[in-house]
């Protein structure tokens, strides 16, 4: 019972901190906080794809699919954000479902390259088809919603809106992972022939994880474009994909909260080295290499390591199934 109350208390503290946070920050940092919250959804949705053991390179592009969907729905059909956000997710999921057929004929390295190629093909469409995607310059003029007289153009209200949407999405993702489906996704990752031999259709579960991940990153794309107001193909290039990978790897991908820790810590880190503009790529590379060498389980494993240091009791921290 004490463990449960402890959890509730720490949850409430976290919630209070998240609600207070924007009021303690300057305007520029409030902007950053919104993007960070959106990026939390990006990595959390990527995690469900990686659960099956397949690392795709199309996730950033899927975010763009959501972003462009929201943009076009807003501009062409004048739909409000309450419609564009789910639509962004649904279109991203639908495109993912179509891509499953070629992509999941491949595994591992071939899947990685295949997903990258498919993503680039989509991205190049945005550049080549100036109508309706606007070419290299992209599209602009997307606005956040108006509810009563709350202006969501301001960062603080939009931050709260983002927090609610991302919170709901994380809750659903967490539930999926802790359900039977999450267990099967793990089993497909760790031993897919064995999973198949007890009747698991591994192809279907790989596809399912990919479609779910794409849905939620599509929603994230919609959230981003409604705040930023503009969208360009280059926002979703391989550069952003590399950032997603670094966040997930540095944070650790054995537990649900690992990637979230990764994106939060590295974003704070990024802010702290803002003055060293030319060195940033090099520093990022060094951080990635260092974390693979010294923290192969990611930042999430630090508490376990410290605990083990004190108790000196061997404990397996590579368990993907935390209780």
């Amino acid at each position, binding site marked *: 019972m004490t463990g449960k109350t402890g959890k509730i208390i720490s949850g409430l503290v976290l919630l209070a901190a998240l609600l207070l946070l924007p009021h303690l920050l300057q305007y520029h940092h409030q902007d950053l906080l919104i993007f960070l919250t959106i990026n939390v959804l990006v990595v959390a949705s990527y995690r469900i794809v990686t659960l099956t053991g397949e690392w795709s390179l199309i996730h950033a592009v899927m975010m763009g699919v959501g972003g462009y969907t929201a943009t076009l729905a807003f501009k062409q059909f004048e739909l409000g954000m309450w419609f564009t956000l789910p639509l962004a997710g649904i279109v991203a999921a639908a495109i993912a479902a179509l891509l499953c057929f070629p992509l999941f004929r491949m595994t591992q390295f071939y899947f990685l390259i295949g997903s990258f190629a498919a993503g680039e093909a989509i991205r190049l469409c945005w550049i080549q088809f100036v109508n309706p995607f606007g070419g290299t310059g992209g599209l602009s003029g997307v606005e956040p919603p108006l509810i009563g007289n709350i202006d969501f153009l301001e960062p603080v209200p939009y931050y709260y809106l983002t927090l609610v949407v991302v919170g709901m999405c994380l809750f*659903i993702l967490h*539930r*999926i992972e802790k*359900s*039977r*489906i*999450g*267990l*099967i996704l*793990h*089993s497909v990752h*760790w*031993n897919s*022939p*064995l*999973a*198949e*031999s*007890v*009747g*698991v*259709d*591994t192809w279907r579960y790989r596809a*399912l994880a990919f479609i*779910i991940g794409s849905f939620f990153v599509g929603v994230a794309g919609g959230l981003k474009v409604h705040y930023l107001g503009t969208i360009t193909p280059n926002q979703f290039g391989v550069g952003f994909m590399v950032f997603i990978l670094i966040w997930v790897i540095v944070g650790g991908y054995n537990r649900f909260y690992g990637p979230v820790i990764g994106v939060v810590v590295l974003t704070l880190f990024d802010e702290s080295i803002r003055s060293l503009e030319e060195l940033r790529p090099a520093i990022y590379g060094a951080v990635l290499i260092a974390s693979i060498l010294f923290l192969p389980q990611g930042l999430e494993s630090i508490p376990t390591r410290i605990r083990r240091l004190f108790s000196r009791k061997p404990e*397996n921290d*590579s*368990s*993907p*199934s935390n209780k």
Partner: protein
Amino acid sequence: MTARRVTSERVGDMTILKIDRVTKQFGGLTALDQVSFAVEAGEIRGLIGPNGAGKSTMFKNIAGFYAPTSGDILYQGQSICGQKPHSIAELGIVRTFQETTLFQELTVFENVLVGCHKRARSNLFNAIFRLDRERQQMAADKVVEVLEFMGLSDRREQLASELPLGSQRALAISVALASEPSLLLMDEPFAGMNPEETNHMMDLTRKVRESGITIVLVEHDMKAVMGLCNYLTVLNFGKLLAEGTPDEIRNNDRVIEAYLGGAK
């Protein structure tokens, strides 16, 4: 074949699995050449032969990991040729693997829970809104039952990778049993075991058969095979060499020659 009907102590009278002139070629290599045999419901059938005889290839064909080049495989009278492994598993043919194949990173309980797939399958909607608690509870009960049956109850929260070899093998069988097979294919269940572990595993295998599951096993440990199986099928160079009871096979000149390379 009449001799067999008298000599083998068979439980049922039904053919559960019929291998009909199965050939499997890999490029120019013929791994299986027109092999035919039938397995009766309720027996423990041994599939033996020297290395490279095609035993594992035969298993993979039955379980759907390979599709035969020609010939047919009938399960309870229905052709299962060319079906995917997961569909074949759903029909009731479940295999265990050579070596120890488990979800090493999951606990004993979770391993068996994955095995309950037929019973516990969930869809996205149910998973998110937790609408199938009853179904999941039934699966968890089945896991408890299987662990009890296999004598693994006291290890349920341990990681699979932490178990000793004998328990790992028992767990591998538990995973298979959880999927409620009627035909269990065991690929070298005794490999690498000491005599004590082998005896324990033999007891477990008999217990599984007594619960109504037909077993086909590939094995090199002749003592275990002779002690366990009602009837043996011998393959050599991809061809059917002999069939018979353990006693008949033990005294079959062609089998002795195949194993000892013609040294008299």
